[in-house]
């Protein structure tokens, strides 16, 4: 069996599961973000009274942190009331950060577990060898009542990544190049196992960035075999004992792809689709209005460090903006301790509260018609960050930083020539 299958089997009390089988699996942790007050409504409509386990449910206020409107402030209050009524052990209010980063830091994510969240990017937790998947409000409400959810055991495909990327090429470039090949619907319903020499040595942040965007290919979940960096991270933080699940040697993947990244260029997903991916040298320089570094894809310490190194001692030109939003309070503190935030402020960046920021067009840097944004986030759909008349380019944090510095889309490798 594959590790993903073993996780599902164990959680549903079975010795074995097969592709296509529907199982009822126990959920180890359930997270609801602040777009999903409907979860509380659905919970009550179904007759729910108390959540099944107060240690295994949390709200994270990230999409509207801090509340930009009266309506979103009201949503927060109704959720706070529910959290208090249920005496939830964990509650992550507007001072926390993006749910996927916060959960990992707080140790509620660990290898071998099942995490379900009301957010499509829950595939991120494959980075830890966990089964993570996103659901809507009503599926989540059924979990809050029963502690379980039905799953179809997915087909599992292998994406093997081999090689060492050149300077200026980052995990975000790697996943964009994969997305450009497999396409936005290439892994619908499937589990993606990222393997290969690149993944084996990759740090936690890079693994999270790659698994995060598995959902942009339609994947149900992602998996990476935990390496020592992951095991060290989890050992320090996990709130309960865990058991790593490994794939059997004789497991046969439904499909296998191999990506050699020694010669990979920095990549861009150009408007208006996540799979419209091009090597940066093939794209004409495009004038930009705003850069954005942040989110569950590109807002970790390593991402902000890359931007700070490029922008330290430089000035972002007038009429070009850079919004930087650390993915969590912990990320922000570390970036302050290391001087990254100060360097970015001095270069002219705007720093905002840890959270999702403008990624989904809610606040803190939405785009006007005709504007162009280059972003370290995950989606460039029409209207994603505000006006449908704006254009969004997805790139690595380094590409965003060097592009903002020049005022037009720029290859970060030009820094090293």
């Amino acid at each position: 069996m594959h590790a993903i299958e073993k996780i599902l089997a164990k959680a549903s009390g079975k010795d074995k599961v097969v592709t296509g089988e529907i199982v009822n699996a126990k959920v180890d942790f359930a997270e609801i973000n602040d777009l999903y007050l409907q979860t509380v409504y659905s919970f009550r409509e179904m007759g729910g009274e108390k959540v099944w386990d107060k240690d295994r449910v949390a709200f994270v206020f990230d999409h509207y942190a801090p509340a930009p409107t009266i309506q979103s402030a009201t949503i927060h209050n109704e959720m706070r009331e529910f959290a208090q009524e249920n005496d939830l052990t964990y509650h992550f209010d507007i001072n926390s950060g993006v749910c996927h980063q916060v959960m990992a830091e707080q140790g509620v994510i660990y290898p071998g577990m099942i995490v379900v969240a009301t957010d499509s990017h829950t595939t991120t937790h494959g980075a830890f060898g966990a089964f993570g998947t996103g659901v809507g409000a009503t599926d989540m409400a059924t979990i809050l009542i029963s502690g379980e959810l039905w799953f179809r055991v997915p087909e599992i495909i292998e994406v093997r990544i081999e090689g060492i990327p050149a300077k200026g090429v980052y995990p975000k470039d790697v996943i964009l190049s994969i997305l450009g090949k497999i396409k936005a619907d290439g892994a619908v319903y499937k589990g993606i196992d990222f393997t290969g020499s690149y993944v084996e040595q990759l740090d936690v942040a890079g693994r999270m960035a790659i698994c995060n965007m598995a959902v942009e290919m339609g994947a149900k979940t992602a998996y990476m075999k935990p390496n020592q960096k992951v095991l060290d991270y989890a050992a320090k933080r996990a709130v309960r004992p865990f058991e790593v699940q490994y794939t059997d040697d004789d497991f046969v993947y439904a499909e296998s792809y191999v990506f050699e990244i020694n010669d990979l260029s920095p990549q861009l997903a150009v408007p208006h689709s996540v799979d419209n991916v091009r090597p940066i040298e093939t794209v004409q320089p495009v004038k930009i209005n705003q850069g954005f570094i942040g989110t569950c894809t590109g807002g970790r310490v390593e991402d902000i460090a890359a931007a700070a190194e490029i922008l330290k001692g430089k000035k972002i030109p007038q009429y070009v903006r850079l919004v930087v939003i650390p993915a969590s309070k912990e990320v922000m503190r570390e970036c302050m301790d290391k001087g990254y935030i100060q360097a970015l402020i001095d270069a002219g960046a705007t720093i905002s509260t840890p959270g999702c920021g403008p990624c989904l067009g809610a606040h803190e840097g939405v785009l006007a018609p005709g504007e162009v944004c280059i972003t370290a986030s995950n989606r460039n759909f029409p209207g994603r960050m505000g006006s449908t008349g704006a254009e969004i380019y997805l790139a690595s944090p380094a590409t965003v930083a060097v592009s903002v510095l020049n005022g037009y889309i720029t290859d970060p490798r030009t820094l090293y020539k």
Partner: protein
Amino acid sequence: MKTKMIGKTIVLGDNIDTDQIYPGRFLELVDPKEIGSHCLAGVDPEIAPNFEPGDIVVAGTNFGCGSSREHAPIALINMGASLVLADSFARIFFRNSINLGLPLIICKGISQKVKSGQSLEVDIQEGTVKVVETGEILECEKIGEHATKILESGGIKPMFRAKMGKSQ
């Protein structure tokens, strides 16, 4: 569950994501009717005001990709869509729609075979679609057993209430 439907179509393209079905700037709304009034605003804000209850949404591949927001099927239902036919659907959107009682039918190639404004007769149990204007019959996939059970209960909420022994 109503298994035969007839309605006028609106045909959309490939990879219509949930931001186009329901733009992020409206996510703080909670009133279902109000949510319905912004349905597909990311494609064209004129779609919802001109949508007749019972009309059918037809789309290309990967309909509903992107965010897990349940507002997307809530918007479609409250705009008056009776069902969605598409070449293929994204996973979370599929679950959310079935959970709320909105039938989704996978019908490969339909977005190329049907034009906006044509009327369709759909038999959900048989998995067939008849284009009224041309008489052409399209064979589609039948809805799976598990999803059918949920739809027959009127969605997952009534199903769960029944399971918990609560009155409707």
